[in-house]
């Protein structure tokens, strides 16, 4: 098993003929992702350079291919539209890679697509190593195994995974949930899935300063996953308060969102917080040894 995504998940790419869409479609195919087609309005009936069918609309694509997983590479102005189009066509799983989606578009999308699982936006996607990858993660860093990983950051995720893989700790599924203020899938949403996934034996949570997702995750772990080996990391601990560094979501505001608040929450849930990414594999191995 794994969560959200496996070998059989039928993936289609929205914006498949764009530069990014086309490039990463090739990389996903190379990783083994079961991509069945793509959508670019006006290019319906054509084939991509990879030989995949292109459709004018998501509806046509879904009807012709049975695709269930959407991967979005469209410009920010079209991201909400792409998600709504997929929702109306019956798609219930989407990964939105696009960066710079207006926060109000996501407020509208999240409020009007009940039952749809959206990863992102502004995220690197997700990967179930050895099975399938949706998004832009560099596949060769990952290794199949039993550690679930959730991260708000993209590149920091690769850093952490690299460490896990080098330490022999393979992954079940790694989800980059994105760093925007409004995202479709939170830490808690993923933890709920990992809890029920037989393949996943341990979890790494890569948080960031800002927001309260980490605090919520800590509360969930405390209540529902007390026995599971979990290690957390909080990025941006040396960012000065009141300064917004890159991610719009990483703005420290009020008491919540500070590194201290998050670390305290995780400690209260019995989750050790690594001081640096390179400490994660060691801490996790320790916890896993104890729990075995």
């Amino acid at each position, binding site marked *: 098993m794994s969560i959200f995504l496996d070998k059989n998940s039928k993936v289609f790419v929205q914006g498949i003929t764009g530069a990014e869409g086309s490039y*990463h479609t090739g990389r996903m195919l190379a990783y083994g992702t079961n991509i069945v087609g793509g959508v670019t309005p006006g290019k319906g009936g054509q084939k991509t350079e990879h030989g995949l069918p292109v459709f004018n609309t998501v509806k046509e694509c879904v009807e012709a291919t049975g695709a269930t997983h959407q991967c979005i590479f469209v410009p920010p102005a079209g991201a909400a539209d792409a998600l709504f189009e997929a929702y109306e066509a019956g798609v219930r799983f989407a990964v939105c890679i696009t960066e710079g989606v207006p926060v109000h578009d996501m407020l509208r999308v999240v409020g009007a697509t009940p039952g749809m699982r959206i990863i992102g936006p502004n995220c690197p996607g997700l990967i179930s190593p050895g099975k399938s990858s949706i998004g832009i993660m560099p596949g060769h860093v990952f290794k199949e195994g039993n550690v679930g990983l959730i991260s708000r*950051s993209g590149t920091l995720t690769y850093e952490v995974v690299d460490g896990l893989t080098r330490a022999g700790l393979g992954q079940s599924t790694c989800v980059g949930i994105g760093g925007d203020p409004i995202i479709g899938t939170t830490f808690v949403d993923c933890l709920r899935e990992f809890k029920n996934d037989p393949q996943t034996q341990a979890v790494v949570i890569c948080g960031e300063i800002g927001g309260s997702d980490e605090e919520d995750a800590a509360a969930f772990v405390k209540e529902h996953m007390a026995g599971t080996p979990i290690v957390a990391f909080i990025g941006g601990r040396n960012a000065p308060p009141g300064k917004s560094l890159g991610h719009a979501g990483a703005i420290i505001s009020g008491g919540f969102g500070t590194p201290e608040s998050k670390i305290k929450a995780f400690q209260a849930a019995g989750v050790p917080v690594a001081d640096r990414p390179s400490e994660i594999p060691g801490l996790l191995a320790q916890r896993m040894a104890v729990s075995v």
Partner: protein
Amino acid sequence: MNLMEYQGKELFRRCGIPVPRSQHCKTPDEVAAFIEKNPGKWVVKAQVLMGGRGKAGKIKFATTAEEGRKVAQEIMATPMPPNRQNPSGEPIHSVLVEETLEVALEAYTAISVDRTTKKPAIIVTKFGGMDVEEVHEKHPESFATFFVDTAIGYSPFIGRELAFKTDLDAGYRKQFPAIVAGMYDLFFKYGAKLVEINPLVLTKDGRVIAADAKVEIDDDALFRHPEFKDWQQVLPLDEDETLATQAGLGIRNFRRFGGTVGTMANGAGLAMGTMDAVKNAGGEIANFLDVGGGANAERVRSCYELVVNHTGAKVFFVNIFGGITRGDEVAKGIVEALKTTKSRKIPLVIRLTGTNEEEGRRILADAGMTPVETMDEGAKRAVELAASGVSS
């Protein structure tokens, strides 16, 4: 993008939120001319983004044209005093001349984005006209929040519920739901991340009026509002933001901290992680720099020059873990930067892995550079180099 008071109030007007009668003036002469034509008791307010105008003496009253000219001159003569976040203060280019209100009561209301519920949050307290965080410390029980279901949108019961729950004076009740309707309308129509009225005044003659306006527009939504272009230009960028823009980066992608280890990474998370790593290795950070996803050679070159020329960096730690960013492009950029730059040269520590890492490493090798293997190793080496002052 934060709006100034007069801009926020212009949006209020468009969305039917009552504001005091006012005139935006760019010179003391304009102030005098306006008061000459419109006799009465006026308040002259500096138009700046920084808070604390009252304490800084940048809000003054005037009843005659001459008085108006005088106070406007006084206000505009000096910039807003600096604070920690705005070390160079803020120049004052204009003032708002506004009718004075006969205030009976002051309340507070705002709409912002709530990450946890993923909904717009409407916040109200009957204690307005003060620093809202201080009010929250003293009277947390006075606040009520409503998280709006965007599928439903705003409906007047929300305003009523908030008014009753926060025990707003009965004088507010009739007008309050319509004012919140205007705020919600503004929030979505103009892509605001924050719409704040503090204070929301109940006048002695029973009118409810937004006496101040704080509006923050989502930068990602600005493409939908080309009409904000004009306003955008009057907003002062600080020095870091200006440098970031000049280097082709987003305004929040570069920030200086005064240390000696320059950094650059792809992605905000890794950029923050890189700073953490330098800190952990005992170094002082010169800067935060997120080169962004999919950076090309040209972008890498401009970032190199930005760090070398505008920070106190004695070493430059480049930390790339490619996903959407391709290692070969970054490597090309570094090589080219070193070849073509006329800036001073400082030691480089490069960590390059992920997408197209082999090709990137080959390009670096061809140019005589050997990347380090891990972030921690890179940070350690950069800190050592910064301390020793040795050239690479």
